[in-house]
């Protein structure tokens, strides 16, 4: 049942249209558990397990009276609740329905309106119950007699004959069906049994309560009183005579004797009355602890305070520094805080709390509140009461953004407007901001505003009745001073009116009255009467509602302030970007972090829920506690972006950063996530995917480089500052040289101003990666090409836009060629034999991972790791060039490279012929051979790189505008970023070039030919998947060049044509591809060849030929190996689905 109800709740949350409003579900639909905890002030570990209508009978005060009197007693009808460790009774109706919501929770109409232990009843820890008997009753089916440990020591209990043993004994009659009663009693039995071990703990905890001392038996007359605060040592504030402390103490002693003390106290109407007239000094701490519920926190973990101090002894923190600054200035007028004793207690309590709640840490005003508490209670008591304050009574008041404080100011203002419209109008007219006056009232709970004795009277009521008391008192202050305030016309006058009022609170409210009784009424008494009579309509509910109404605006305010401040403090780099861009970057940065956190939370919650299927409480609990985090306005949230978040961040801005195919993990998570059940919920797919509703970000070596470059502190995480600085260097300067330099630096790993052979290939891979969805920005030859990214799904041959992208591919190949052509040789050196072996191993690993790449994109990262290892080696022997060797293992040093390459992929026999053949042709280009020869390391420098880039119009334009323009900081921020995920790729494959073969092969017979509409999406998925892989893209470059080379050779030797066709045939067989598709692939390959020939023929010199030879192997590896083929197949089916799902989700999310 519990499980189902929590699912229903979950469903409501998911369907809640207000989700986007940042009002959390726990605000709007407080869970049954949280209502229960709030009503009885119980810790979060307690959940309402059973409830039953019941009638409570409390015997008349004096238990030694005759039986006749005992029969009558006090009777209360209400509800009895059972949680894990508590038995609670309250006369206020409960609302713990299956799906508690605001309307139902407003049924609370008790004195505290759901905000505290309202009405009459009790909150017994099960460990305080000594015995439960079932009574015979005529009226009801079930009647239980409950006797408690109240005032009974365990030793005394053994002595059955003791006469002075007065047992607290109450009777509860259950009014429900027999079954329900049985169930409840079973639960109670179980609970009592599990809690039997806690009796000693309870005894120890309550022994620190002053009431135990107050009501101690005769023989302990000389016992030392428990710590009732600094007041015992330094005197309590105020004149005890004037406070009538002795009389109050007598009344309380009587009440406690009759109705139980501390944990076993029963609340009757007198209890509430006694609190309203002010607590006696020595009992004040205990009553605060009891009514706030912090006693139950202490009971739950009695040693937490001491343990925390011990655990963190000697440690330092920012909070501790802040605490130290304020220790000497917390209620300095109270003698206790002029002593080392008082200061020491204050230090320990504040420090301990800053450790257990590091998110809050320390906030000025806490020192004042805790100092006040310490006058009346022990350190441990104050520590737990501070917890209760921060978590429940004044949530968010002391958080790092103080949103609770600001929110309650807004609530207070709207209450003033509603209840005192004339005064409000006056405030508005004279431009007085109310909160400059009222904020300190709330923040320091009036302790800093009123004389202490009166502030403590407010606190007495506050702890039992909840935060509404702060509002009632505040409104009463304004009401009483209304006349004078209407005369005050500025902040200063306003403040002085109130200041003088507070200074005279002890004076008579009616000094001129004839009636001596009226004359005796002090201004403070008047204040209390006005607060609780005139403003009795201010309830916990009205406060909650107003908080809900204002919460979003307040958070937005805080966030825009935080944003403003953060942006302004970003340092000189930020000046390169426009204010709009900075704002957008800020939004994107925190947006991604927040989204990820929320998603992570929901996913974790789901896991917890499934893990603890028997009890949904774990998940519900986690939900209540931490859903509030993450939003900037709510306080501490993560402000560091890890690599995954960075990918997501970029994917929101740049087309190229979006993955071409969702990874398999996503699908797996969904499958294993009871998809059937959740499929019916909106957004569930989106929220449960690791990437949410947005597109899945790509993972590419270029992204890793960019991340590393931006991560200035090498912290593996980016701050907003890092992101802005990084972005400023790309987008900020808008000069081509800057961008070219940046791109070069990005690939210059060791920062020596040289990029080696492998680096050159990486650069070209990066260029292809960045351009695979089309180029952006201003491209002069045909600006229509800007639109090209949407329409060439099936690789139609005559799209005008194609030419640009096609030409860009050409430019990249020319780039590689030129780089090698103009590269400077390093000093030739002998290869270290050991290193050579190592490299070969690495290369094999790389080779292997290359085969798996289709199935698992992460494999690329693995290969890259190997590379990193190589980098380390390089550092040790910088003059060698192991990287090249790592990728293309050279078993036979000194031989032409192409042969080595072939030998490394031994499975591809057809290529052997070719390479042998090619070796002949390569003889003509010895110079270029040398350039590719790993035994002849080479590098390019920045000037060379610049020259090579500027030599090509398209590359120049790429660096001039395309690359910077591809970061869309501003565009599409508000709307979903999904649309781009479906956009087509401009790649070799989508152009219908040679790679089409591999694609079709991967699809196998499942999808039709490349032109078939049904296969379109699946085809794209495969294309995407292939292109994601940077290595593969490079392979395509090389392959394409090789084809061009073949073309040349063909022209030279027409007779070889057949042989080449055979090659293709072999490839096809190896891949198990249907021949029909093969033909179309071959066809498109032809088309490509032609286009290459026309645009690049002039570039195809000997160097090209060399490069193209390398591609034979690389391409063969990619498409020829069986693993590659099958991996491609698996991946090929999936991305189609993935993209489809992503789209649908996106639409729904938008709606």
């Amino acid at each position: 049942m519990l499980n189902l109800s929590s699912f229903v709740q979950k469903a409501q949350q998911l369907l809640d249209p207000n989700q986007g409003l940042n009002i959390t579900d726990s605000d709007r639909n407080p869970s049954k558990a949280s209502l229960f905890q709030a009503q009885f002030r119980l810790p979060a570990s307690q959940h309402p397990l059973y409830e039953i209508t019941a009638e409570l009978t409390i015997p008349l005060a004096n238990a030694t009276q005759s039986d006749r009197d005992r029969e009558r007693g006090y009777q209360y009808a209400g509800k009895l609740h059972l949680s894990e460790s508590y038995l609670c009774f309250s006369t206020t109706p409960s609302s713990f329905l299956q799906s508690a919501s605001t309307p139902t929770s407003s049924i609370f109409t008790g004195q505290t309106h759901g905000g505290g232990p309202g009405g009459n009843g009790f909150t017994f820890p099960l460990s305080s119950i000594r015995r439960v008997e079932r009574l015979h009753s005529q009226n009801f089916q079930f009647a239980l007699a409950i006797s408690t440990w109240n005032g009974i020591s365990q030793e005394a209990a053994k002595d059955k004959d003791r006469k002075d043993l007065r047992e607290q004994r109450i009777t509860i009659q259950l009014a429900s069906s027999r079954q329900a009663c049985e169930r409840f009693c079973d639960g109670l039995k179980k609970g009592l049994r599990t809690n039997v071990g806690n009796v000693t703990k309870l005894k120890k905890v309550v022994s620190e309560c002053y009431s135990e001392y107050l009501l101690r038996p005769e023989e302990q007359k000389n016992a030392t009183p428990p710590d009732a605060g600094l007041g015992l040592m330094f005197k309590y504030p105020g004149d005890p005579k004037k406070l009538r402390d002795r009389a109050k103490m007598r009344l309380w002693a009587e009440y406690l004797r009759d109705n139980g003390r501390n944990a076993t106290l029963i609340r009757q109407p007198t209890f509430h009355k006694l609190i309203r007239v002010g607590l006696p000094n020595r009992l004040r701490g205990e009553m605060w602890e009891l009514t706030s519920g912090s006693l139950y926190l202490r009971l739950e973990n009695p040693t937490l305070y001491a343990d925390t101090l011990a655990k963190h002894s000697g440690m330092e923190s920012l909070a501790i520094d802040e605490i130290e600054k304020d220790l000497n200035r917390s209620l300095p007028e109270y003698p206790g805080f002029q002593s080392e004793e008082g200061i020491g207690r204050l230090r320990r309590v504040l420090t301990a709390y800053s450790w257990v709640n590091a998110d809050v840490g320390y906030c000025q005003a806490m020192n004042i509140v805790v100092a006040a508490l310490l006058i009346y209670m022990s350190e441990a008591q104050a520590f737990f009461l501070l917890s209760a304050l921060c978590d429940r009574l004044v949530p968010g008041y002391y958080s790092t953004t103080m949103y609770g404080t600001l929110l309650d100011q807004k609530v207070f203002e709207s209450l003033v407007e509603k209840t005192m419209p004339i005064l409000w109008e006056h405030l508005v007219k004279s431009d007085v901001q109310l909160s400059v006056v009222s904020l300190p009232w709330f923040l320091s709970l009036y302790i800093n505003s009123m004389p202490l004795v009166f502030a403590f009277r407010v606190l007495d009521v506050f702890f039992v009745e909840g935060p509404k008391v702060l509002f009632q008192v505040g409104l009463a202050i304004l009401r009483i001073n209304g006349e004078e305030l209407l005369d005050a016309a500025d902040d200063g006058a306003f403040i002085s009116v109130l200041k003088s009022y507070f200074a005279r609170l002890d004076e008579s409210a009616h000094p001129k009255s004839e009636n001596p009784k009226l004359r005796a009424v002090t201004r403070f008494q008047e204040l209390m009467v006005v607060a609780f009579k005139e403003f009795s309509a201010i309830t916990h509910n009205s406060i909650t509602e107003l908080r809900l109404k204002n919460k979003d605006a307040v958070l937005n305010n805080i966030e825009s302030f935080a944003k403003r401040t953060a942006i302004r403090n970003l340092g000189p780099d930020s000046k390169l970007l426009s204010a709009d861009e900075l704002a957008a970057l800020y939004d994107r940065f925190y947006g991604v972090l927040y989204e990820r956190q929320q998603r992570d939370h929901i996913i974790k919650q789901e896991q917890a829920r499934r893990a603890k299927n028997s009890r949904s409480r774990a998940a519900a609990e986690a939900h209540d506690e931490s859903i509030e985090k993450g939003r900037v306005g709510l306080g501490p949230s993560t402000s560091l972006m890890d690599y995954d978040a960075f990918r997501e961040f970029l994917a929101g801005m740049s087309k190229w950063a979006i993955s071409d195919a969702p990874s398999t993990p996503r699908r797996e998570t969904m499958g294993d996530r009871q998809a059937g059940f959740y499929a019916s919920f909106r957004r569930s797919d989106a929220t449960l995917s690791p990437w949410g509703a947005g597109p899945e970000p790509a993972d590419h070596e270029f992204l890793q480089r960019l991340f590393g470059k931006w991560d200035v502190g090498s912290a593996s995480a980016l701050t907003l500052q890092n992101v802005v600085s990084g972005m400023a260097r790309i987008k900020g300067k808008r000069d081509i040289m800057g961008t070219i330099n940046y791109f070069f630096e990005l690939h210059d790993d060791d920062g020596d101003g040289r990029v080696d052979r492998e680096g050159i290939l990486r650069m070209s891979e990066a260029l292809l990666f960045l351009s695979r969805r089309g180029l952006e920005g201003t491209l002069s030859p045909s600006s229509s090409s800007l639109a090209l990214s949407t329409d060439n799904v099936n690789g139609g041959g005559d799209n005008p836009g194609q030419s640009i992208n096609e030409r860009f591919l050409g430019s990249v190949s020319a780039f590689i060629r030129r780089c090698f052509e103009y590269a400077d040789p390093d000093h030739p050196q002998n290869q270290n034999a050991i290193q050579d072996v190592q490299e070969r191993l690495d290369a094999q690993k790389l080779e292997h991972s290359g085969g798996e790449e289709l199935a698992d994109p992460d494999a690329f990262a693995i290969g890259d790791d190997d590379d990193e290892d190589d980098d380390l080696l390089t550092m040790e022997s910088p003059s060698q060039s192991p990287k090249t060797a790592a990728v293309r293992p050279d078993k036979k040093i000194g031989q032409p490279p192409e042969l080595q390459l072939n030998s490394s992929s031994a499975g591809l026999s057809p290529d052997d012929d070719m390479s042998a053949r090619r070796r002949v042709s390569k003889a003509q280009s010895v110079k270029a051979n040398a350039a590719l020869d790993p035994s002849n390391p080479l590098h390019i420098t920045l000037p060379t790189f610049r020259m090579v880039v500027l030599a090509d119009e398209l590359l120049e334009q790429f660096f001039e505008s395309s690359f910077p323009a591809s970061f869309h900081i501003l565009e599409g921020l508000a709307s979903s970023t999904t649309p781009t995920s479906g956009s087509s790729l401009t790649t070799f494959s989508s152009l219908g070039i040679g790679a089409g073969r591999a694609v079709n092969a991967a699809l196998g017979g499942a999808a039709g030919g490349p032109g078939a509409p049904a296969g379109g999406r699946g085809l794209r998925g495969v294309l995407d998947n292939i292109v994601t892989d940077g290595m593969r893209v490079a392979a395509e470059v090389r392959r394409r060049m090789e084809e061009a080379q073949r073309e040349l050779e063909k022209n030279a030797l027409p007779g070889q044509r057949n042989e080449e066709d055979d090659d293709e045939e072999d490839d096809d067989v190896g891949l198990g591809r249907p021949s029909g598709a093969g033909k179309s692939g071959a066809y498109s390959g032809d088309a490509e060849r032609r286009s290459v020939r026309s645009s690049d023929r002039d570039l195809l010199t000997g160097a090209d030929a060399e490069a193209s030879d390398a591609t034979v192997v690389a391409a063969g590896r990619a498409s020829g190996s069986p693993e590659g083929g099958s991996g491609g197949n698996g991946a090929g089916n999936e991305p189609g689905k993935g993209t489809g799902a992503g789209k649908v989700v996106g639409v729904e999310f938008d709606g």
Partner: protein
Amino acid sequence: MADSSAPKPSSSVKLVLLGEAAVGKSSLVLRFVNNDFQENKEPTIGAAFLTQKCNLPTRTIKFEIWDTAGQERFASLAPMYYRNAQAALVVYDLTKPTSLIKAKHWVAELQRQASPGIVIALVGNKLDLTNDSAGADGEGAGGGDGEDARKVTTEEAKTYAEEEGLLFFETSAKTGYNVTEVFTAIANAIPETSLKTARGPGASAAAARTEEQRVNLNGPRDPNAKEGCAC
């Protein structure tokens, strides 16, 4: 000071103090308003409100001083206090370089968000902890006698102040050095025009009426009124 104010025109100026926690904002105000110094000054919750007059040869300026809380998390409350302010005192601790960075942030915030034409003074406090103060008795957190605790050079702060067009002073709230000078300089820097429009009509009348209830500027402090309390 009510004695000499009769003939001269009087106008009130809203002044806000900003700066990192424990740089001595409240102490500066206390020195200026009461010519007093307390070692253990209660931290400001939200903001404290005080007034003090400043007699210039031609006019009297009545400062309405908003002394804000310095702890970082109170920063989001600051706009509430610097709203409509005509002058601001941005204070840093010249023994603590981070406090100058924070001060710069405040200056930027004020220049962007506060009323245009706000007069800003940058004040380096705790000069008594440095060697260049005559009566430095080296008291304070680890200041150490004879050892110069200064961490922010006059030049650095001054250059920055000049760049941003701020008034600049180094003060000691403890010894009182330069404190009155800061306020006088601000009073002089407030343009005549902004004084006339500073408050709505009737404001001065109300202010005059409540005058006697305000902080007693010269006498001993009322023991009942808590220090730095806003109300």
